[in-house]
């Protein structure tokens, strides 16, 4: 989509899709509608088929059950190849929260080595490997006031809600550098997973990292759409979507 060779007088229209196959997509749409980005007006669109995806400039993959989102995508005609092509394109801005982070990884495995990665990951963040549910089940879900220096008002903590959250297993170096934007303190991070992990040796140093950026791609293992704070969406739109078109 052409965002417009405007002279800077007229605001350009940005269509940001939110994948609406399953999960908490409506919250992301409400957030996007609240954003005020200078020089642009944002249209948020619920995306359920390849035609709707085609009309989007950028995409959010929301939280939900990653297995369910994968299965529905597999069985919606044309959807899976369209999604894979979209997220793999480095020029396409994509933001994944929780389940979205799992789907944007190179590979994923269930925490505790319960099962091998079933090929559900769609890619997008090159070099990222993810543990599903490493933080445990619902009884281990928690909130934490996270320090994120890159956001506006960096001194105000971000109330991060972690629901059966995934964790970073390891980060492989590639051409595109992965920035670590936020980490949990060590006492909140689960114990290293057992050695029989289906993903191989984990990198313990990366386990506390909960927010990552690679070019136009952003992932968080928590749910900003549940805390009533739009600063992460604002960051993504500013730095990954509209910056240097």
């Amino acid at each position, binding site marked *: 989509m052409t965002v417009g060779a405007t002279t800077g007088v007229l605001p350009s229209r940005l269509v940001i899709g939110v994948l609406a196959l399953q999960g908490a997509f409506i919250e992301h749409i409400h957030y996007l509608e609240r954003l005020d980005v200078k020089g642009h007006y944002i249209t948020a669109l619920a995306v359920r088929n390849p035609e709707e995806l085609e009309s989007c400039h950028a995409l959010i993959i929301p939280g*939900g059950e990653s297995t369910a989102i994968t299965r529905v995508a597999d069985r919606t005609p044309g959807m899976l190849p369209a999604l894979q092509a979209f997220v793999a394109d480095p020029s396409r801005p994509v933001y994944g929260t929780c389940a979205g982070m799992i789907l944007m990884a190179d590979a994923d495995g*269930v925490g505790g080595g319960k099962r091998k990665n079933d090929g559900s990951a769609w890619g997008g963040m090159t070099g990222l490997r993810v543990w599903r549910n490493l933080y445990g089940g619902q*009884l281990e879900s928690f909130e*934490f006031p996270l320090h994120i220096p890159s956001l506006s008002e960096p001194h105000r903590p971000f109330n991060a809600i972690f629901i059966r959250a995934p964790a970073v297993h390891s980060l492989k170096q590639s051409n595109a550098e992965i920035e670590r934007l936020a980490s949990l303190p060590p*006492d909140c991070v689960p114990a290293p997973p057992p050695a029989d992990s289906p993903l191989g040796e984990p990198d313990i140093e990366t386990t506390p990292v909960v927010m990552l950026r690679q070019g136009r791609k952003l992932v968080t293992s928590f749910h900003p759409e549940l805390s009533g704070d739009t600063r992460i969406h604002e960051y993504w739109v500013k730095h990954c979507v509209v910056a240097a078109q």
Partner: protein
Amino acid sequence: MSASEPTIVHSTGAAAPAAPANGATTPSFPGRSGASTAGGTFGVKTGLAQMLKGGVIMDVMNVEQAKIAEEAGAVAVMALERIPANIRRDGGVARMSDPAMIKEIINAVSIPVMAKCRIGHTVEAQILQAVGVDYIDESEVLTMADDQHHIGKHAFKVPFVCGCKNLGEALRRISEGAAMIRTKGEAGTGDVVEAVKHQRAVRNDIRRAAAMSDEELYVLAKELQAPYHLLKETARLKRLPVVAFAAGGVATPADAALMMQLGCDGVFVGSGIFLSGDPAKRARAIVQAVTHYNNPQMLAEISENLGPAMVGISVKDEVKTGHQTAYADRGN
């Protein structure tokens, strides 16, 4: 905060502020001291339900069925020894399932696992929390353990889902600590009429409330026997302040899509899948129908060649005439 986001404040167990919690509410589990995290807050409890939206939660009786459900794209499974239609057939007292059976299912799937306890049976709920289920359904499908009181659900770290027939009942359950609501419908019948009735009743009351002044809302709160602050919040949001699913009698993809068009956030399917001719296929079809509920062309394709649906029990002919137990009448 926009008008579209819930800001429920409970008299007890309030939604947690951003500040680190003190030791009293700190979870303790192996491998993580978690000294500065807040677990089991209302935000965390309702948060999981938010992630289940647009999805299907399926009743399963063993590991094999749980795997079929997960493969079909269920967002969660409800582990129980007998699905509602079989409880109906067998009669007698229906209780919490064997924890060993629930644990097997937890170990077999990566999606959340729910389990049912009897209405008012605090100890069954404590046991299910100890087993490590992700959600508890305080369910009218099981025989009531207390015919006056529901469980005080704020005291638990695990979240609860409860059934309702109307707005007053939904808000009473939320007031007790339920983090998710579902219609009661009439479980184990395969007749969707009661689920439709309950969903329409909730929506009707919400529309009424949304048009009212404060003075009128006080009167409505009395009429509905609902806490005023929750009614006020519901009127402001123009929807229930927690996630609300359909349940009780959903048997086909069209039933599921109907409930979604009536404004439900997702669907529970109890007996409808594993009592049908081809459970795996029907399970997949219902999952697709809940995503594409507004696309009739897609629904037509999804509904093709599913084999026989579960044999239904007409609510009007069997339940209302007293030949069958009305589960929806349990609890209020």
